[in-house]
């Protein structure tokens, strides 16, 4: 029997519908109340230190837990007070708490560059003394050596950051809003993934009703699992790190490396088992075909392609026995996989265009028959803004940003900055907004755009690598406006909440980051993930930042036209053959994601996907399992986050006591 052909748009929307269990509403109310604002600030600022600390200890910030903790507290208080919480309030609470928790991470780059400037790698590649003062103070400055962000040395980097933040807010809010009006109001694109987030707020609002629903039970199960896992994986190393010079790790963070064990039969293959089994939850949620094809392709890459073909034909020629996963990964990347990966990314851009351009034609054709499409009139009381005002704000924000970059790197050609700002950014954002509107995901991305620009500009100074470029994408954010619409939250209340909380977070973020840096040097034994990854990241950053300095750089030599072409063409061939044989296009994204990747990093996700597909769906039924998924994942993130928060609190108190001499 011939297999029936399913279009890519239909295939992806069918998946999106599995998560979409109810429609939105169309009456709008403000979600911003004093209790929401204070609640978000309280929980957000309480969990922010834990989130930063966790990201250095395990590589995962656990920031996903905070909004849920805020909502649980909020809904419980509402129930005890015999009142109810509205879905608008809960959605606002989720957003504001997420912003509050994430605010510490905005200063992460300061700590990274304070480390990077004094690394042997930066010195040996002769860039340590060329890092601009608007990124980080000099390596021998007091602000860096004494690990303090609250110091005059940091004035310039922080001032530049704040200017960028202000201008960025203007651009992002206005850019997203204009695109939302174009795609959601004018063209009526469906935004298939938006109902998932909207449903989360609705589900939690239900808990303040008289009857307790299944959601609370599922959330509790997830939370308990998260607490147990969080204690074993994060709690034990963090707590023993307080008492001992070398923390005890029940499971080695971040992976157990089997690369040397397999080199006998699979030279140049890598296999490092990632020990963060919290990834299983992602396996539950992600589409099964993607997880499966990704893993199979990764296994084939490391056990067949690398050792039997690429190594045998001396394409992977720098490998030598005894290297660990980082060494093998670096050499394999330089020999082949960086080039191949570039080509692979280009194919994703082309496939995205091939899928989205015909949709434009289709919409244009069907527009004639659709009565409402083509009208830009707004629903009443949604809290809309004048389009001209938003356009003006975007121009001011973008103009100011270009001027700032020009001030930072005065010798870089201004024409490139203007082209990025006023041609590339609107076009790129519009394409992404459309793909989010139709498929719920991004398809269009031009890889290595900065590198290509730097080559074309013939600008050879290092400073441009540290400067931001005005190549932005507001398309992804349009989905958030759609969620606001679905939850019935007025746009004005959301904007007011964001603007009100921002100054508080700017100040509190820097204070918390300063204190965490004071606990111990980053990286150090106290922060195992940073200690493991940052040295290799420093090497990679040096390779990239010096790649265009002279014709003999390692990175430039690593990029070979025939390998880039191989990545590009082979990916297109895979996509094409899947289409010819009427196989799901999801397989393509799995194959492209898995090729050349380490299968050990996917084991936990694979386990989750298999358990979900072959046990949970049979046990609970497809619809119920997809209803449980997001709530279970939220509960787990909440449990892990609580453990992280608890351990960081103990670590902070302990360090504060020990550091004091009297």
């Amino acid at each position: 029997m011939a297999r029936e052909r399913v279009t890519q748009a239909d295939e992806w929307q069918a998946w999106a519908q599995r998560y979409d269990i109810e429609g939105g509403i169309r009456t709008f109310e403000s979600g911003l109340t004093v209790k929401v604002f204070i609640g978000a600030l309280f929980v957000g600022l309480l969990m922010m230190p834990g989130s930063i600390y966790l990201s250095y200890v395990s590589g995962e910030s656990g920031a996903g837990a905070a909004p849920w903790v805020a909502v649980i507290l909020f809904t419980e208080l509402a129930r005890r007070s015999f009142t109810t919480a509205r879905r608008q309030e809960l959605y606002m609470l989720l957003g504001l708490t997420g912003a509050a928790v994430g605010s510490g991470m905005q200063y992460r780059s300061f700590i990274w560059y304070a480390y990077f400037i004094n690394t042997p790698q930066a010195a040996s590649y002769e860039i340590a003394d060329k890092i601009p003062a608007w990124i980080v103070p000099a390596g021998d400055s007091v602000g860096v050596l004494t690990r303090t962000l609250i110091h005059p040395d940091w004035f310039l980097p922080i001032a530049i950051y704040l200017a960028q933040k202000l201008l960025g807010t203007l651009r992002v809010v206005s850019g997203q809003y204009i695109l939302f009006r174009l795609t959601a109001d004018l063209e009526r694109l469906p935004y298939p993934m938006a109902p998932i987030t909207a449903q989360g707020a609705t589900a939690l609002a239900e808990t303040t009703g008289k009857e307790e629903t299944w959601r609370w039970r599922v959330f509790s199960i997830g939370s308990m699992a998260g607490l147990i896992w969080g204690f074993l994986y994060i709690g034990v190393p963090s707590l023993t790190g307080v008492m001992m010079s070398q923390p005890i790790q029940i499971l080695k963070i971040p992976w157990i490396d089997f690369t040397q064990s397999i080199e006998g039969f699979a030279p140049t293959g890598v296999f490092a088992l990632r020990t963060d089994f919290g990834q299983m939850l992602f396996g539950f949620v992600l589409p099964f075909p993607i997880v499966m094809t990704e893993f199979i392709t990764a296994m084939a890459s490391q056990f067949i392609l690398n050792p039997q073909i690429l190594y045998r034909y001396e394409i992977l020629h720098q490998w030598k026995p005894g290297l660990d996963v980082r060494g093998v990964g670096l050499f394999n990347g330089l020999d082949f996989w960086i080039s191949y990966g570039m080509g692979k990314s280009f194919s994703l851009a082309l496939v995205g265009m091939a899928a989205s351009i015909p949709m434009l034609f289709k919409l244009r054709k069907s527009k004639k028959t659709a009565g409402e499409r083509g009208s830009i009139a707004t629903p009443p009381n949604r809290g809309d803004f004048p389009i001209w005002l938003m356009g003006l704000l975007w121009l001011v924000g973008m103009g100011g940003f270009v001027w700032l970059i020009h001030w930072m790197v005065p010798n870089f050609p201004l024409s490139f900055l203007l082209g990025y700002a006023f041609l590339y950014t609107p076009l790129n954002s519009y394409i992404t907004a459309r793909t989010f509107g139709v498929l719920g995901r991004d398809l269009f991305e031009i890889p290595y755009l900065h590198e290509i620009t730097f080559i074309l500009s013939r600008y050879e100074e290092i400073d441009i690598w540290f400067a931001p470029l005005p190549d932005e994408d507001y398309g992804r954010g349009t989905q958030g406006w759609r969620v606001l619409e679905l939850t019935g939250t007025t746009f004005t209340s959301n904007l007011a909440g964001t603007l009100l909380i921002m100054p508080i977070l700017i100040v509190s973020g820097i204070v918390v980051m300063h204190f965490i840096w004071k606990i111990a040097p980053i990286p150090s034994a106290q922060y195992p993930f940073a200690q493991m990854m940052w040295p290799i990241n420093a090497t990679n950053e040096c390779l990239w930042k010096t790649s265009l300095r002279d014709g003999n750089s390692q990175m430039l030599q690593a990029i070979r036209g025939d390998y880039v072409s191989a990545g590009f063409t082979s990916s297109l061939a895979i996509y094409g053959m899947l289409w010819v044989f009427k196989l799901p296009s999801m397989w393509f994204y799995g194959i492209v994601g898995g090729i050349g990747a380490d299968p050990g990093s996917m084991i936990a996700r694979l386990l989750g996907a298999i358990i979900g597909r072959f046990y949970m769906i049979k046990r609970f039924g497809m619809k119920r399992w997809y209803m449980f998924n997001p709530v279970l994942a939220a509960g787990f993130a909440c449990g892990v986050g609580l453990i992280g928060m608890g351990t960081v609190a103990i670590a902070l108190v302990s360090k504060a006591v020990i550091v004091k001499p009297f």
Partner: protein
Amino acid sequence: MEKVASTIIIIGTFLWLFSVIVLEGRWQWQMFSALVLTIGIFTAHFWEELRDTDSTEESGDE
């Protein structure tokens, strides 16, 4: 149109395999194969999207 798209894609895939195995993976030949594949993939998607619109309009007219 579906068969045309499939044929172009299959030709492109064989061209690529040929360029890698016989022509030592020279980038010029690989990119030529990519061009053929691109034409095939665009044809496939245009056919896929626009056939539904045509059929909807036809049924609407009835």
